[in-house]
């Protein structure tokens, strides 16, 4: 007998890691609706990493490699922040400065609507989050390797990669989590749910 406790949670609870979603009024399709955006989302990040790893093979000039990586990282930052996030998962974040000069960071997410064309496709969502999380982790690994192997001249580029891609990652996680909950309460509620599932699973004979 499936437990009904999931439906008692407030419906704004978007789970970050659950494969099965509780909100069933958002039909998920597994086809890719924006192939161009998906391609570019991964293209800039992956080619920046490839150029960084294979720079000696491509060109003997350090400058050309460095400028290429910088351009790829910048294009990737702009594309992910302004285009692919909007199209693929319906999230957006930016900074807004009001009349008094105070800066506000705005994290926006598209409300679940009944229109078919605006729903989030599961395949696109997977591609998006995979690309968003894997690449900054790789750049952090590169940062440590550059530091410890004393290839310090690459450190500027690697730090730029970490900062730009980390910023996008942080921004989109904040968008996903939403403005009402912060990350720690989100994590505790997720762990609490898992714990509860396990204990009730132990109590009831299957």
């Amino acid at each position, binding site marked *: 007998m499936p437990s009904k406790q999931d439906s008692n949670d407030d419906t704004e609870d978007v789970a970050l890691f659950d494969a099965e979603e509780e909100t069933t009024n958002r039909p998920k399709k597994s086809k890719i609706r924006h192939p161009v955006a998906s391609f570019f989302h991964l293209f800039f990040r992956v080619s920046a990493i490839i150029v960084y790893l294979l720079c000696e093979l491509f060109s003997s000039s350090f400058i050309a490699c*460095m400028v290429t990586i910088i351009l790829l990282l910048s294009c990737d930052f702009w594309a992910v922040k302004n285009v692919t996030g909007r199209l693929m998962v319906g999230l957006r974040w930016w900074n807004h400065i009001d009349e008094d000069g105070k800066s506000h960071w705005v994290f926006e997410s598209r409300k679940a609507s009944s229109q078919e064309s605006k729903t989030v496709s599961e395949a696109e969502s997977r591609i998006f989050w995979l690309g968003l999380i894997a690449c900054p982790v790789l750049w952090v690994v590169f940062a440590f390797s550059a530091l410890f192997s004393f290839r310090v001249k690459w450190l500027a580029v690697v730090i730029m990669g970490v900062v730009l891609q980390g910023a996008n990652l942080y921004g989109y996680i904040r968008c996903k989590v939403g403005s009402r909950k912060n990350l720690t309460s989100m994590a505790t509620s997720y762990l609490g749910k898992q714990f509860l599932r396990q204990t009730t699973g132990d109590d009831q004979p299957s």
Partner: protein
Amino acid sequence: MRSRVREFDSSTLNESVQNTIMRDLKAVGKKFMHVLYPRKSNTLLRDWDLWGPLILCVTLALMLQRGSVDSEKDGGPQFAEVFVIVWFGAVTITLNSKLLGGNISFFQSLCVLGYCILPLTVAMLVCRLVLLAELGPINFMVRFFVVIVMFAWSIVASTAFLADSQPPNRKALAVYPVFLFYFVISWMILTFTPQ
């Protein structure tokens, strides 16, 4: 004077890619214009972006290369050096300004300082062209004059935006690091000689 507020509903979420590109390009272009004709404008500071500083920094670093690009000694350290000086210098000035109690946000200050490198980048371009002629005292005087004028332009442009954010008795304290920052860049430009 209205501030440009982006609607908080789905209008920016659903705009086309071309609109986004054009909007950002226009914002960058407008800021370049503001640096060329500096006048006090609060609305400019509000929509900050760091694309202009990135383009200018890369251009400046590329032009400050010593030696040919094909040679064995690649100009790697000098390129990274310019990058580090520009960005680290801008961050230091911003921290100084915030510690003095300035009313400007971190990224706004970086944006202003970065965009005001534009006159010095133009000076670098002119110097490289002048260096194609024969070297000599006249050559040096021309470059010196160009660099001094552009240095003054950068200082005027950046203080037009930055000085307002400080209380009156702290303006000089906030402005002198900007002076140093552009002085170091002007020095790098003036002492540049291609091998």
